[in-house]
């Protein structure tokens, strides 16, 4: 299986990374600095290579100890954004060979307790209403649970034994939080009419079997306290929500740009959390979905690992 994922990854590099080497179109944020393109480097040293953490992302140290939840906090102004090239996911099916988002502007901060990653990208349409033919905007940050400089996990959602932590922010969850009440059918269809629902006549215990995914506490179905899903994966199709949701985030869509912060505690919770220590190096990767282009699941654009240095 491991060999297989390597082969798949090699294919991905061959197919997808060529575009990564050239400078991308103008970023959503101004004054951005492209991350050095490392596709060919990675391909050349496939099994052992994680490139030296130069030219990557610096998590700048700031004061405080709480979650870094404000995408407009003044601390971000002091961090120089870098551009990360996004490429189509074409290794697994199904896929979308021409994804809408081709680059992200990324900044990072930490306060010794929480790591924050600020992601910005151009999106002319805010997509946060989910009905059968409408998909939501989403972005994800991926961190290896175990990172060794000589061997990083497969950046494409890890591999068996190479667990990664994937923290995904969803615009639809953000809308849920801002609504401050349970989603109703009238939010999706303002003119909908309905009569009696089981939850108006049954007690909670009897009700569960009528509630579908919400009745089994599917994390995407229940009313959320955070717009992000804190998850682990060991390869395609293995994404699993962590029993204890620790990461958090917040996203704001303004003037055709999403500005999303994803934050995660730096204290590791064993097998499912990345090791994040001030002064250390690790890697980080990204994925983004444009809802208006019906991007969802494997239909996405993703980045290779980007070196991440956590300031002392």
């Amino acid at each position, binding site marked *: 299986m491991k060999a297989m994922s390597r082969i798949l990854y090699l294919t991905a590099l061959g197919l997808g990374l060529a575009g990564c080497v050239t400078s991308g179109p103008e970023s959503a944020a101004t004054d951005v600095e492209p991350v050095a393109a490392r596709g060919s480097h990675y391909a050349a040293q496939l099994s052992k290579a994680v490139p030296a953490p130069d030219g990557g992302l610096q998590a700048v140290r700031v004061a405080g100890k709480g979650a870094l939840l404000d995408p407009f906090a003044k601390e971000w102004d002091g961090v120089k954004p870098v551009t990360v090239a996004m490429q189509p996911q*074409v290794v*697994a*099916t*199904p*896929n*979308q*060979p021409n994804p809408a988002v081709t680059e992200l502007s990324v900044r990072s901060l930490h306060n010794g307790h929480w790591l924050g990653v600020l992601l910005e990208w151009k999106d002319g349409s805010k997509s946060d209403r*989910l*009905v*059968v*033919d*409408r*998909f939501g905007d989403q972005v994800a940050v991926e961190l290896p649970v175990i990172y060794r400089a000589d061997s990083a996990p497969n950046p494409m959602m890890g591999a068996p034994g190479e667990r990664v932590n994937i923290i995904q922010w969803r615009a*639809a969850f953000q809308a849920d939080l801002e609504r401050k009440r349970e*989603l*109703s*059918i009238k939010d*999706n269809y303002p003119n*909908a009419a*309905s009569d009696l*629902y*089981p*939850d108006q006549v049954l007690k909670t215990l009897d009700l569960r079997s*009528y*509630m*579908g*995914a*919400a*009745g*089994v*506490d*599917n994390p*995407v*179905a229940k009313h959320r306290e955070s717009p992000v899903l804190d998850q682990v994966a060991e390869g*395609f*199709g293995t*994404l699993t929500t962590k029993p204890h949701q620790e990461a958090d985030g917040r996203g704001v869509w303004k003037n055709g740009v999403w500005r999303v912060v994803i934050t995660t505690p730096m204290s590791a919770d064993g097998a499912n959390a990345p090791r994040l220590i001030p002064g250390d190096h690790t890697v980080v990767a990204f994925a983004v979905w444009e809802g208006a282009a*019906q991007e*969802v*699941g*494997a239909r996405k654009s993703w980045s290779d690992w980007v070196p991440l240095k956590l300031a002392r």
Partner: protein
Amino acid sequence: MPKVYNWQIGRDMEYLYDEARPKKQFAMVMDTNKCIACQTCTVACKTTWTSSRGQEYMFWNNVETKPYGFYPLGWDVNILDKLGVQDIDGPVYKGKTIFEAAPAGDRMLGYLPDDLDYAHPNLSEDDSVGSMTQGAFMQVPHMQWMHYLPRICNHCTYPACVGACPRQSAYKRPEDGIVLIDQMRCRGYRECVRGCPYKKPFFNSITRVSEKCVGCYPAVEEGRQTQCTITCIGKIRLQGFITTPQQANEDNPLDYIIHFAKVARPLYPQLGLEPNVYYIPPIHVPPAYLKQLFGADVASAIAAYRKAADDKKLLGALLLFGATADIIHRFKVTDQFAIGYNEKGDELVRVPFREPIFLRPAFDEAYQSVRSNIT
């Protein structure tokens, strides 16, 4: 992709996973000639399964008028159009299945319906093909035609939803072949909605995951037929289990109807899913249209159905439709009765070929009144 054998198209075909037939395969036969589109099945399913928030628009069971009725709008003509003209003549299908016609980057040929496609579940109800011109008179058979098509999930042997899901949230149960979507595992990517050509997985906009017909599995586990079957007032349905033609048992009523009498056909077998809901085709509908719907053998199925009176065993099997709420695994025909048995071999029901007639006198001496109904 692995090669699997699909007996309905008479050949091997590509599928996402290896052939793994369940121990038993859930199946249903519906006699379209007896359906009156009363939607009792639809309402039975709705009240049983889809009464919650986000399920308002869902009909896991629906009945549409063919050829112009659809739920969702245009579901079958859309996928047929995308698949293009295919050679459906002959016992071996020479065209492409939706798996073999998969575009680059996709696992199968499919499409995602528009939200509004679900807004008119009864559009074209009772509409006929063609119109009556001024001065025309009705002939028998009628020159205009339509028919009803009751639909549930086909619990396919090679389900597109199972093949489409990148998370393996949709799965086929090894014990009875029922296809389900794991409500804990699904994340609402809608690949199943896109992939299923019958459009029987539905997206729930409140729970944000997909749902589908569950084959009334809690009932089936208890040896009971589905809600849509047992509530059917026209007794058009029989639900049980089917085997492959090679293992067919003529004492199993579904096997007899499908494999021996060959009066029931699957819906759009050319798509390659080996669907397990079988239809006795409407006998008055033009054969060219029926061939597209039910495959090349449709004419012989109709011919066999027209001669049902000569095949007592077939007649007996047809009598068992709607005769009991329990699943009939075996049946037997005697001079007077069609007898159905459960899995253990216990008798479930005994249906007379000819119902006894009781004649009452037109004038009731006791009540000194005249009866209008004397039988």
